[in-house]
């Protein structure tokens, strides 16, 4: 069983959660002022690291709240969990803890 710790509900089974892609992408203040390239970059371009990744998850079958996760995409180890609006942890090379 792959457990994820919801900041509200605690440890729950992964099947209760939905992955929400890369975190901390801010919508541009004035989209009409952007070039097509800049807008496409905001809409489509995402990091795809092998290692620590800051991403969003939602506790779909539980409290239905969004939160942030730092996960090692190589080992699938969850390195940190923090609420929306909180500062992300510094990226590290750790994360082999399972």
């Amino acid at each position, binding site marked *: 069983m792959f457990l994820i710790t919801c900041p*509200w509900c*605690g440890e*729950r*089974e992964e*099947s*209760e959660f939905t992955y929400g892609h890369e975190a901390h992408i801010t919508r541009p203040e004035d989209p009409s002022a952007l070039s097509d390239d800049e807008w496409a970059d905001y809409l489509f371009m995402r990091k795809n690291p092998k290692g620590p990744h800051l991403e969003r998850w939602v506790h779909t*079958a539980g*409290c239905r709240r969004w939160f942030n996760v730092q996960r090692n995409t190589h080992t699938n180890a969850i390195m940190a969990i923090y609420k929306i609006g909180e500062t992300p942890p510094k990226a590290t090379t750790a994360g082999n803890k399972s």
Partner: protein
Amino acid sequence: MVDAYRLRSPLDHLGLTARAQAEAEYSGTGVVLSEIAHLCLINIRGDASDPAFIAAVEKSIKLTPPTAPNTVAGKPSQSRIMWLGPDEWLVITKPGRGERAMAELWKNLKDGKLHAAVTDSSEARTCIRIEGPRAREVLAKGCPIDLHPSAFGPGQSAQCIVAKCGVMLVQTAQAKDTAGTYELYVLRSFATYLWTWLEDASQEFGVRVA
């Protein structure tokens, strides 16, 4: 004003009342299943850190919205309020008591000019109760939540999955012999599926309808 119409439980077609009468004599079954139909369920959204919001809810329903995740305040025999999220709760009251609770909540939250929402969701769900010495084992077949008495007990709740079906799970009682009583609040379109799954999963322990 909504016209009066005939409320019908989503499990009505299973003839549970007749079965309960027929099976009342059964003894020693490991599991007892029953439906608690037509409970009033009121969803409340608001700011838990605002004392005025808490006070308005307390004034309306005489219960304090719990801030501890996945807990329920109040007695099962009366009205209860369940934590659904950091700014969301569910009031559970007896059939017929919902209108008054709705009106009180509307009035007190409006009077306080509070940023809040109150929604009657009574007919979205029905409640299935499962009890008996083997009830916990039946739920364990389909639910990843640890329901062992050392981890889960009366007054605790969880929005979770039972047999692939989303439910609000509440434990209402705990007997000495580790028998727990649980309520499953299930969306009405899933109610027949969940009931038949529970009854099937209970077969090996012996089951009766109450």
